[in-house]
């Protein structure tokens, strides 16, 4: 299976493990991730205003580029996924906005909103299948209690994202189960870590992150997995009592391709 792949800027610098293991695991699962040429930063957050056009062009270009690869665009960073998916939704549902965007793109490059945008987790669930993921497990993670941390961007707004039930998601838990580990359900898994507010109000984001890690820890988790570099940063920086890793790292470990040394 060939799909277009949008890594995003953080994955090229601070979140290399998220990217590297995503690629390695995809190889094992016979998915070929074709990196979009000349991709640009998604912008980090989606501006909900209908009159913000320029900031959404990079996402539209990435969506458009996926045409070469079965019209499927895969992201692995939650933030990129959120931005690109919301942009795609706006292109499909707001004709005025779509018109303005296409005016920027120039003749012949118009984008019609038909690309399917999938998060790596959705790719695993809906295209590869968790049964097939389970078949590739070499080192079963049996006995490990893993807390999935969704944060906000992967799930909300649900009317656009449709990733999973935003109040009781299972997409990461099902992956954890497929890898042989035991998922831990805790109430803060879909609440915000503080996000970019860490830049100007670190105390506040520390408060939010504490709530999350405490909730996971108290529910008996050994480990937190996430799909978002900023979530990982916030949780770790604010003293998570348990390790926080990317879900791709957990997969790599189960597939036996995780490198021991710290990358």
């Amino acid at each position, binding site marked *: 299976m060939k799909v277009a792949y949008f890594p995003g800027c953080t994955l090229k610098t601070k979140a290399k493990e998220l990217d590297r293991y995503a690629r390695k695991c995809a190889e094992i699962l016979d998915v070929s991730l074709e990196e979009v040429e000349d991709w640009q930063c998604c912008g980090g957050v989606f501006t909900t205003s209908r009159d913000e056009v320029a900031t959404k062009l990079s996402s539209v270009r990435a969506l458009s580029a996926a045409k070469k690869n079965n019209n499927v665009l895969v992201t692995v960073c939650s933030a990129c996924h959120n931005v690109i998916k919301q942009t795609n939704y706006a292109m499909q549902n707001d004709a005025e906005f779509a018109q303005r965007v296409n005016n920027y793109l120039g003749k012949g490059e118009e984008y019609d909103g038909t690309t399917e945008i999938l998060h790596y987790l959705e790719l695993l669930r809906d295209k590869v299948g968790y049964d097939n993921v389970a078949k590739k497990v070499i080192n079963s993670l049996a006995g490990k209690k893993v807390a999935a941390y969704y944060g906000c961007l992967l799930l909300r707004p649900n009317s656009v994202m449709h990733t999973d039930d935003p109040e*009781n998601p299972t997409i990461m838990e099902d992956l954890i189960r497929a890898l042989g580990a035991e998922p831990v359900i805790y*109430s803060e898994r879909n609440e915000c870590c503080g996000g970019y507010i860490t830049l100007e109000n670190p105390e506040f984001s520390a408060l939010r992150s504490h709530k999350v890690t405490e909730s996971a820890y108290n529910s008996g988790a050994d480990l937190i997995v996430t799909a978002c570099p900023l979530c990982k940063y916030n949780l770790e920086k604010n003293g998570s009592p348990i390790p926080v890793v990317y879900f791709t790292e957990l997969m790599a470990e189960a597939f036996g391709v995780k490198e021991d040394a710290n990358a």
Partner: protein
Amino acid sequence: MQRIGVFVCWCGSNIAGTVDVKAVAEALRSEPGVVFSTDYQYMCSQAGQEIIKEAIKEHKLTGVVVCSCSPRMHEATFRKTAQAAGLNPYMVEIANIREQCSWIHKDMETGTQKAIILGRAAVAKVNLNAPLIPGQTPVTKRALVIGGGIAGIQTALDIAEAGFPVDIVEKKPTIGGKMAQIDKTFPTLDCAACILTPKMVDVAQNENIRIFSYSEVQEVKGFVGNFNVKIKKKARFVKEDVCTGCGICTEKCPQKKVPNEFNLGMDNRRAVYIPFAQAVPKVATIDADYCTMLKTGKCGLCAKVCTAGAIDYTQKDEIIEEQYGAIVAATGFNPISLDKFDEYAYNQSKDVITSLEFERLTNAAGPTAGKLLRPSDGKHPHTIVFVQCVGSRCAACADKGKEYCSKICCMYTAKHAMLTRDKYPDTDVYVFYIDVRTPGKNFDEFYRRAVEEYGVHYIKGMVGKVSPQGDKLMVQASDLLANKQLHIEADLVVLAAAIEPDKSARSIATMLTASMDTNDFFTEAHPKLRPVESPTAGVFLSGTCQGPKDIPETVSQASAAAAKVIGLLAKDKLTSNPCVAHADELMCNGCSSCANVCPYGAISYIDKEFRMPNRTTAIRRVASVNPAVCQGCGACTVACPSGAMDLNGFESAQIIAEVDAICR
């Protein structure tokens, strides 16, 4: 050619004030077909009616035009007058020269001119009128009530009391419905079972009532007065007439792990069960999904212990066919599923419950014998949070909740909060509300008592998230009046889930050709003036299947529906409105266009033999309108591509004649 009489009414000065009635009478005298024309002060008076009667006889009138007030006012009066003089009542037409003319125009010249034109149109129409004779159909003097909750029970009792036989079809093994699950009723706080179960016994003992429990309506054919219904009596593997309801089988059955639906799955029952002690009929039922004997052929313990010999593992579903004159839908409601509202953690914690579950937890016959204990650990909760409007008034989420107000939640939540504080004064009770809606007799007083006398904390705001943490539930909520976000450590959270019509209602509505709204509530024939009738003749509505209702309202509506049924069954023959559609068989090509638009299913097709040239015959499929079912809307007349369909009293030719008369 008709012989038409024109009668122009002055209506005192109401008409004569702005219309020169004499000029109108004079002008209409020269219209085609008119042989007599006159005017009088009050045509509707005794003397006025005499004038009409005498003119009919003296001038051998075949048609009458009365220029007077709206036909909605006195059409029936003048039809009776004509009938008394031996004229077919449908030969009368009214020209509305009061509401449509004299009352809205000030100028005599203008008014008179318009009145003449309106009269002219009526004369043109009468020229094409034909005598109509209302059809008559016999009435089967038996009623069917679908649903055996308090609505169905009350309707059946009232109909039976009037002397007519009634059958109740209930899909569960017992009648009683939701009210049987409720602990106490607001605002009087009498015990629901104490007022319901005697009624259930009355039903069982009433000679006019038959109960088909564990049964479903499978097919409905026919029309008002003459419904033919197939009822499926599901196999309960117990002979109903032999079982004594002693309950030994339900104690001995080894299959103990069946979720007890009567207690909403909060405890277990056996595979053979009687839903509750006061069940009617008090007969055991074997749950085929769990019975070891039925699944594997090994066990048979219940048959061994049954001294009456009532167990029959070979029982099959049975189809009963019966005739009814009237059908009452009383299919009731259910709380909605809360799967999509997991911000309240209903699926994540046993201690987040619905209000109906709360009823069972406080009911002496419930899983905790009436002690308020947490489902998770059986401990007494000290802080309880009630959340109102869970899924009600939810416009953003058609797939999640309901746009309407469920109406009963404010009151039962006040009841729950009050009873909790009454029985367990050491418990803190919070109620989060958007609005408290208490229109009803003694309702607001009741709610205020909960606040003022029982110390329930009512907070204007909503709960945003419930987080299970250890054995506590962290409730994050808003207090809008204080402009605060609250964090309450609760032991139990009770959700006032929206209510929705029972899922079976839609298929029943389809069978009855009764219409439903977008929420699957049955629609009334008229929302104000005919609230217990469905638009389909002979089908009546009782209880929450028509919209959210509390018990007193349900019972009133149930009795009202019964009164309508009694009124129908008391007739020996039904006289139908003769202004119905009819098909010209020679023109009809059997295309089904008419049947497709008919909202009542009044049109069927028959094969008819037609004489063809050279003494041959041919059989063609042609439309046939059942005049007892047709309501005379005329949708079919326009849909018919060949112009074969027409409507009595509003024939195309008549309307065209009116158009021509107006445009002349």
